[in-house]
């Protein structure tokens, strides 16, 4: 099985703070991590390789420091990595990101492409399906179980739905996006971390993929961000200490009635 996994380095959203004056993100001091959904994808790819043999290639598009995310994937057990990095790639929306990834991946051999369902910074869940379309291959998005049948060149996946899940079959090649529950990603061992440093990370620039680099990045993006702003802060609420549960319950009901969540009209009527 030749498996390509697309990964993204993201800021640890939990640690992000907003500058109270400029209302912009403070990025300094915020650790960058491998997108958690991508960890499920990398882990599953490695497990498939361990079972059926083959190769796992991780691909990322991002600035120089995104190399750290690739090193983590290599330490987990991926075989080699491709780093798409160029100023021309910056500012890409999901269309341009998926297009750029497709230009690099179509030069590779692959049976399965894995992505995390979404990245925790943008939360769009669009790059996977858009990439599948650019490559003209079928997709199964949001999978929590995967079985590969190399002999018949098929996969069978459990895809999450609103009601439960579907068991879906597809011929190879196919693109799958991973959700929580697919597996428990391994923590890289010391040996893994040491061997990662010896593995290949191939750097690809915009000029390697196209003569006209205006198809990438901000220039190649159909959508544009007009502005970003911070949401209205929540009004400060009331916190009470409960000494008497019934009294606390009464106050709560009053609040729910005043906000029209429940109606206590009859109770309010004079006796």
């Amino acid at each position, binding site marked *: 099985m030749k498996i390509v996994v697309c990964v993204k380095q993201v800021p640890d959203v939990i640690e992000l703070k907003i500058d109270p004056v400029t209302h912009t993100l403070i990025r300094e001091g915020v650790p960058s991590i491998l997108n*958690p959904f991508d960890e499920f994808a990398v882990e599953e790819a490695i497990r498939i390789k361990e079972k059926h043999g083959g190769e796992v290639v991780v691909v990322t598009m991002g600035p120089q420091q995104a190399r750290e995310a690739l090193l983590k994937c290599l330490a987990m057990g991926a075989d080699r990595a491709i780093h798409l990095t160029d100023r021309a790639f910056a500012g890409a929306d999901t*269309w341009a990101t998926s297009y750029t990834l497709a230009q690099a991946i179509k030069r590779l051999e692959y049976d399965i492409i894995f992505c995390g369902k979404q990245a925790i910074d943008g939360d769009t869940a669009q790059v996977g399906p858009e990439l599948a379309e650019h490559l003209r291959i079928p997709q199964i998005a949001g999978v929590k179980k995967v079985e590969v049948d190399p002999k018949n060149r098929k996969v069978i996946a459990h895809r999450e739905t609103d009601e439960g899940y579907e068991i879906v079959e597809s011929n190879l090649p196919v693109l799958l996006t991973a959700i929580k529950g697919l597996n428990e990603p391994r923590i890289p061992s010391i040996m893994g971390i040491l061997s990662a440093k010896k593995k290949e990370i191939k750097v690809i620039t915009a000029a390697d993929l196209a003569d006209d680099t205006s198809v990438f990045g901000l220039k190649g993006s159909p*959508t544009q961000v007009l502005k970003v702003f911070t949401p209205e802060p929540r009004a400060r609420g009331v*916190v009470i200490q409960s000494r008497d549960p019934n009294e606390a319950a009464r106050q709560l009901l009053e609040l729910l009635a005043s*906000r029209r969540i429940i109606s206590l009209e009859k109770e309010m009527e004079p006796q």
Partner: protein
Amino acid sequence: MSQETTKEVWAISEQHEGKLRPVSFELLGIGKKLSEKLGEELAAVLIGNNVSDLAKPLTAYGADKVYLLEDELLRRYTPDGYTKALSELISNKKPSIVLFGATINGREFAPRVAARVQTGLTADCTGLDIDDEGRLVQIRPAFGGKLMAMIVCPQKRPQMASVRPNVMKKTDPDWSRKPKIERVDVNVGPEGIRTKILDIVKEVNPETIKVEEARIIVSGGRGLGSPENLKMIEDLAQVLGAAVGGSRAIVDAGWLPHHQQIGQTGKTVAPRLYMAIGISGAIQHLVGMQTSDIIIAINKDPEAPIFKVATFGIVGDLFQLVPAITESLRKAIAKKN
């Protein structure tokens, strides 16, 4: 696709086993506002098989016309089938705007359609408007809701967005409106659908309220102590007609299935009322629920971060408080009836 469009705003109406999802009506509500501002028509696009009955409610809730795409191969959603059917219709009719519900299926096939018709798509929007230049302005949260982004698609058409369920208001239905149905020939052959559904597993009782569609959610966390105590949460939810959710801790412990997890690796919700019971409020949980209208928190730890976002917080023993609240609600409702 170029700027040349017909004067139509489209709402993709998602149906499942012949029933429209609630977000389909919400799309018509916001679609109506946008189409009126633009002086355009609002069309519902209905994909399935033997679903023409649904044209009537879609019309009552605001659709000026209904494109009906029926085929046995479209009875159940597949990314290939739905992408092909819709992309061909977009290429033929050239609408100015196409709106999808940001449901599991909507978010899987909208990007595929966008890539095929080569236009932009904005995910999971919570606000939509038309600016002075007649462009669709799309507002969506990013970075776990810490920032909001305002996005436009200046050149490519149609302008496409998926819209978060339970955010937009539906209009009051007018059942006197007569549906104007335009049947569309569909060219989806079996060879065009490359994924095959082998089996459908239902884990959710169809009567159960889904967290992403609920007006009220009652969620439990680690403070419940053990899975049997989830019963308290369910009883309270039942009295309120609410959906049941949970923190990552109790989902990871196997007390609740993943589709009921609220937070970063689960669902993002914004109901009218969110009750967090025995949930400390780790930021991973807060990003999934902090835009709810009213937040009520019950926790024994006065320092729990959940109290920072709570409209009303009660510091105390949930094992006493929750039954007392459930009982008072029961009485209040009984008295009213």
